[in-house]
């Protein structure tokens, strides 16, 4: 039984009508992952046709990056609705963090190959999907810009670090 319909009101999918959503359900693959499964590994290339972006339907995923000596990196746990690996799929650059299933996780994914096929055969849907991706990136940039601005202007790095540590950033 597919659980893709649980994502109907997700920000990424809200712009699509029911027919388009049904097409996306056929294009995106749903899988259940065991605890400890690594969906994305930091440093891996995202350029291959099997590279994918994921949307978590259910369960928790740990997201973390290597810490420089004495410094800090990203470390958080995300759940239902989280989008993983979107940036790598857009810009082909190596993955910036590792995403590992903390427990049993249900997620849907879209591979580069599937997107390329959508681009070839359903250009209207591909354009709409890119718009939704751009919107997601814009939201993320605004949120980080806001924090960076606060850090530079108000010098509140400690508060930002707390937000990172609480997994809110």
């Amino acid at each position, binding site marked *: 039984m597919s659980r893709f319909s649980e994502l109907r009101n997700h920000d990424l999918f809200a712009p699509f009508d029911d027919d388009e959503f049904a097409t996306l359900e056929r294009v995106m693959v749903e899988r259940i992952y065991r605890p400890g499964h690594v969906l994305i590994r930091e440093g891996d290339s995202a350029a291959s046709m099997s590279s994918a972006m994921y949307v978590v339907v259910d369960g928790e995923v740990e997201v973390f990056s290597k810490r*420089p000596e*004495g*410094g*800090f*990196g*990203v470390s958080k746990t995300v759940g239902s609705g989280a989008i993983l690996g*979107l*940036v790598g799929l*857009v*810009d082909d*650059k190596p993955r*910036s963090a590792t995403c590992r299933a903390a427990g049993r996780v249900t997620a849907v994914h879209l591979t580069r190959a599937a997107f390329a096929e959508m*681009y070839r055969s359903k*250009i*209207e849907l*591909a*354009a*709409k999907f*890119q*718009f939704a*991706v*751009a*919107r997601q*990136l*814009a*939201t*993320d*940039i*605004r949120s*980080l*810009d806001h*924090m*960076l*601005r606060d*850090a*530079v*202007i108000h*010098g509140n*790095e*400690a508060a*930002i*670090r707390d937000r*990172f540590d609480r997994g809110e*950033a």
Partner: protein
Amino acid sequence: MERELLQTLGEGMTGDQAASLVTRMERHEIAAGTALFRYGETADRVYYLQSGTLTASLDVDGVRLEIGVVPPGHWLGEINLIDEGPASADVIANDEAVLYSLRHDALVSLRDDDPEIAAILLRNLTRDLAARLRRTSAGLVERVNDHQFRLATGEVRRGWFSRAIGKLFSGGDR
């Protein structure tokens, strides 16, 4: 404008497609000292600066903080094109400037009327946004790590301020 488009956000389009996109854009001429937009105002379009230069700045507790000078050939407002949210800085023309803009509504119409052109534009745009997201994220981590370093050693690393400011308002690489 077609030629500039093909080298930037329209990379990968045919000449006809770029020309068609230009017909959906608006041309603007603004005088020296005029604000293109102001911080916090709702902005709904992306601009291409064809000639002239602009200065981006912010008012911080009554002090004007210059973020950077935008030279010709740059796009600004990519995020506003997508989300129609508030402008993130005051942007003022230093001299007479000529710009082309594409409104959010025009992009939505383009997506429905000519999805192939929209798809190419959005592919290039999302690539720029992804690069910017990586830069901002790296800037934030670096900033907080610098802070930790200062706390630990009492030293200030030279250059952190200009690096951080540069990342705040770094335009696209295109």
